[in-house]
């Protein structure tokens, strides 16, 4: 081992070009932070720097697609595969949408703009590292980088009791979940003797302590379950989402959740595969598949039923985000049961596409909720949307498109996403998974009630008090328009993106660390 370390020190395998997209985002965050400390009065420049960084990073990421580089960088710490590239693109899109959607909010609430944008960029950097991490250490560090930045963002409205409460709950329960995840990582390390995911996959069959492997993976399911808000680990979600400022809530429901899914997928689908002839690996594989399927069933049913009972739109969207985590789990479990690498990549791409669509839709919806909510999101109940349909036709139309996409209406991107994540699970023919898909379809039917309720409220209710539509700033208009166009476009022409997501870099995910 010491020889290995010595060799690493003399010839460090530190290929900076392979993590350039991540570095650019982190650099943009640092530049924003510095700029803000010299010009604290600025409102728009830090956002522009952030957008520029995100754009450069996205271009670099797209250029990396299918390049001739094979292998892992940084001594096997960083992966170079479709999971990383497609999720990276999703996170960058989320960050860009959040910056655009929060322009008005930043203005009226007097939030420290530079701090907010720097935190957002650091959170994005952390999420990208989570998707890129090929080692439990990198995944853990990425997770904490994004979580710590998000804790602060939830509490950005310092004087507001609800924002404080949201940050406090998010912080305590988030670090509680991290401790579980970490204990799981420690036990998996103990059972296999390595923290590198391809090496874990290679040694699950011959693990020294199979029992620890089982306990460790269960702990990791608890930890990741908290982060992606699977029932019964979702308790923090509604309170935190309701209390946090609306643009941040949109970010939290889309970004950290998708990031947690990306590492969750990497650790479980790629790290705990089915190894032929190895009993311990077989038991582990079967256990996590069935456990996740059961959690998915509970999550979908609970999220949808609880969403019906809500009167606050932000809370309703919080429960709907729980349900959507359940739908994404269907694709996840399907990826776990895939028999060939191609099928597995397709299922992973389906989950990435689903979360991409969910993120766009959700961020668009939260942009409108924050616009209509006014200061401190006071106007976020269903009654506040009474009869606004024909008074602000563009906003109501956009919000309706988002609701229909969340519902999974054909011709919207949400429909394609659902079909894609359900397919691998159905094709596997496993009884539990077919049940899961059936429950997911029933859940979608239940969800029609609360999504369509918003449409009914907007278009068919009378408004008692006078109401003038708010002024829509151009940045917010861009974000909403982009989201509507994306939802409708990917509802019809999603092939290109899905193919791109499923076939990325050469030697996808099967690269072994060189040691």
């Amino acid at each position, binding site marked *: *081992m010491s020889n290995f*370390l010595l060799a690493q020190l003399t010839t460090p395998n530190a290929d900076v070009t392979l993590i350039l997209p991540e570095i650019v985002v982190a650099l943009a965050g640092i530049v924003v932070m510095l700029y803000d400390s010299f010009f604290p009065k600025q409102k728009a420049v830090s956002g522009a720097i952030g957008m520029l960084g995100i754009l450069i990073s996205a271009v670099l990421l797209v250029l990396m697609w299918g390049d001739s580089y094979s292998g892992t960088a940084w001594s096997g710490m960083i992966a170079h595969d479709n999971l990383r590239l497609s999720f990276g693109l999703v996170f960058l899109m989320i960050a860009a949408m959040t910056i655009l959607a929060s322009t008005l909010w930043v203005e009226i609430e007097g939030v420290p703009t530079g701090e907010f944008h720097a935190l957002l960029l650091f959170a994005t950097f952390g999420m990208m590292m989570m998707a890129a991490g090929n080692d*439990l*250490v990198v995944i*853990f*560090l990425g997770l*904490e980088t994004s979580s*710590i930045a998000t*804790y*602060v963002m939830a*509490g950005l409205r*310092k*004087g507001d*009791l*609800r924002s*404080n*409460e*949201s*940050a*406090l*709950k998010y*912080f*305590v329960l988030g*670090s*509680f979940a*991290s*401790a579980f995840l*970490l*204990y799981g*990582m*420690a*036990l998996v*390390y*103990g059972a296999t*003797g*390595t*923290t590198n995911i391809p090496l874990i996959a290679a040694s699950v069959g011959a693990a020294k302590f199979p029992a620890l492997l089982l306990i460790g993976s269960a702990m990791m399911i608890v930890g990741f379950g908290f982060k992606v808000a699977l029932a019964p680990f979702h308790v923090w979600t*509604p*309170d935190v989402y*309701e*209390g946090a400022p609306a643009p941040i809530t949109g970010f939290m429901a889309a970004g950290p959740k998708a990031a947690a899914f990306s590492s969750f997928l990497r650790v479980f689908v790629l790290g705990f595969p089915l190894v032929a002839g190895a009993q311990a690996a077989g038991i582990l594989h079967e256990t996590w598949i069935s456990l996740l399927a059961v959690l998915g069933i509970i999550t979908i049913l609970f999220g949808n039923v609880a969403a019906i*009972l*809500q009167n606050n739109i932000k809370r309703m969207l919080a429960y709907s985000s729980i349900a959507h985590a359940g739908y994404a789990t269907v694709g996840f479990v399907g990826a776990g049961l895939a028999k060939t690498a191609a099928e597995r990549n397709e299922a992973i791409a389906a989950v990435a596409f689903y979360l991409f669509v969910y993120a766009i839709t959700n961020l668009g919806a939260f942009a409108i909720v924050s616009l209509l909510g006014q200061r401190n999101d006071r106007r976020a109940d269903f009654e506040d949307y009474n009869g606004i349909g024909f008074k602000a036709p563009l906003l109501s139309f956009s919000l309706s498109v988002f609701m229909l996409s969340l519902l999974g209406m054909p011709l919207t991107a949400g429909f394609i996403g659902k079909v894609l994540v359900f397919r691998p699970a159905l094709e596997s023919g496993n009884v539990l998974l077919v049940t899961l898909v059936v429950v997911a379809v029933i859940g979608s039917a239940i969800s029609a009630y609360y999504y369509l309720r918003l449409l009914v409220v907007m278009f068919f209710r009378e408004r008692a008090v006078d109401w003038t539509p708010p002024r829509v700033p151009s940045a917010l208009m861009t974000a909403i328009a982009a989201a509507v166009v994306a939802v409708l476009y990917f509802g019809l022409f999603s092939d290109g993106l899905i193919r791109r997501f499923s076939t990325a870099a050469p030697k996808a995910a099967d690269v072994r660390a060189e040691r």
Partner: protein
Amino acid sequence: MEPNLATYLGLSGILFTIGCVGVVFKRNALGMFMCIELMLNAVNLTFVAFSRYYADVHGQLFVFMVMSVAAAEAAVGLGIFIAFFRNRQSIDVDTASILKN
């Protein structure tokens, strides 16, 4: 008795359980946070024990990362607690109940 791997794992399991129970039953946010730190230290002990058992440095490296992250978490957490305390004159989590169904 010479301490072996099982002793360390047992101790870290006990510490983790104490921390976990503490988070569930403590009502003071600072106390809860201390219990979370206890859980993280239990994890560190597990890593170090296995690191020694396998004669592999990766476990110890992981512990460094956990410690630095715990420090960052503490800095942010205390800031959040102070903001909460300023507005409410208490860090009892039971007073955090505006957001409920």
